[in-house]
């Protein structure tokens, strides 16, 4: 990945995570990514226009529930946190992707976004993403998170 994109993506991920879910993520090497306990979710925000590609975030189910609880001001054991976990992952991808692409696009150019889509991950998908060179890994309160930015057309200014 373009180092400028990499750096901007990591910055936006940490900032949005703190502002949206009041959680803090530290970038780690793929080998230091905390283990995924249970299911994993991938939420992807596709975009096209002056910039084309996608921004995907990947989190464990436990982290998704923790993010939902924190966003809503509830305890992680609250049933509403579990109910909203997938919605929160999708929204987080939307906010991170939107802010990142807005930061990367040349001023005055148009980028069209599609609504984010969510996938439940199998173990082999999780491992493949962890080892992908376009993936950045994060430790969020001892839970795993990954960020994957794919640019098919770059008009990068940041």
């Amino acid at each position: 990945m373009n180092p400028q994109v990499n750096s901007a993506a990591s910055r936006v991920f940490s900032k949005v995570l703190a502002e949206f879910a009041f959680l803090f993520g530290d970038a780690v090497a793929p080998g230091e990514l905390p283990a995924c306990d249970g299911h994993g979710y991938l939420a992807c925000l596709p975009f096209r226009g002056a910039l084309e590609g996608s921004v995907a975030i990947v989190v464990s189910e436990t982290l998704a529930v923790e993010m939902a609880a924190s966003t809503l001001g509830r305890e992680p054991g609250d049933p509403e946190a579990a109910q909203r976990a997938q919605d929160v992952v999708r929204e987080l991808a939307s906010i991170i992707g939107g802010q990142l692409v807005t930061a990367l696009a040349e001023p005055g150019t148009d980028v069209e976004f599609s609504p984010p889509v969510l996938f439940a991950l199998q173990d082999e998908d999780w491992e493949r993403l962890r080892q992908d060179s376009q993936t950045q890994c994060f430790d969020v309160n001892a839970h795993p998170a990954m960020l994957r930015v794919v640019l098919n057309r770059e008009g990068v200014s940041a």
Partner: protein
Amino acid sequence: MGYNVLAVDDSSTVRAVIAKALRVSGVEVSRFGEASSGDEALRMLHEEGFDLVFCDLNMPGMTGFELVEALRRDGLLESVAVVVVSSIGSSAALADLKSKGVRACLKKPLRPETLRRVVEQVMGVTDESAS
């Protein structure tokens, strides 16, 4: 007497966060309506009275951009204060929305203190122009 508020976002969590942010920031709300798409919002705005709308842009079906255009065409942007709440949109696109009658644009994630300030501005509680 509080405001009749409509939150338009395909994320139920964002709608819940808007409701909570209004409550926490002390904005008086008489009725809080929710729509998960532009189409549903358009129907509710025609059938029910709302003073203030918080609207996402990137939604399945009718987008926020299309909803604003429909509201402008139907003459509703003069009587209903529409505030865009989104993480997408270039400065040119947001300026275009404002030129059509959108009162303010807020960036996600939403902060209660910002929400209150913008509500006061767009509802004429203070005389500052909207952000």
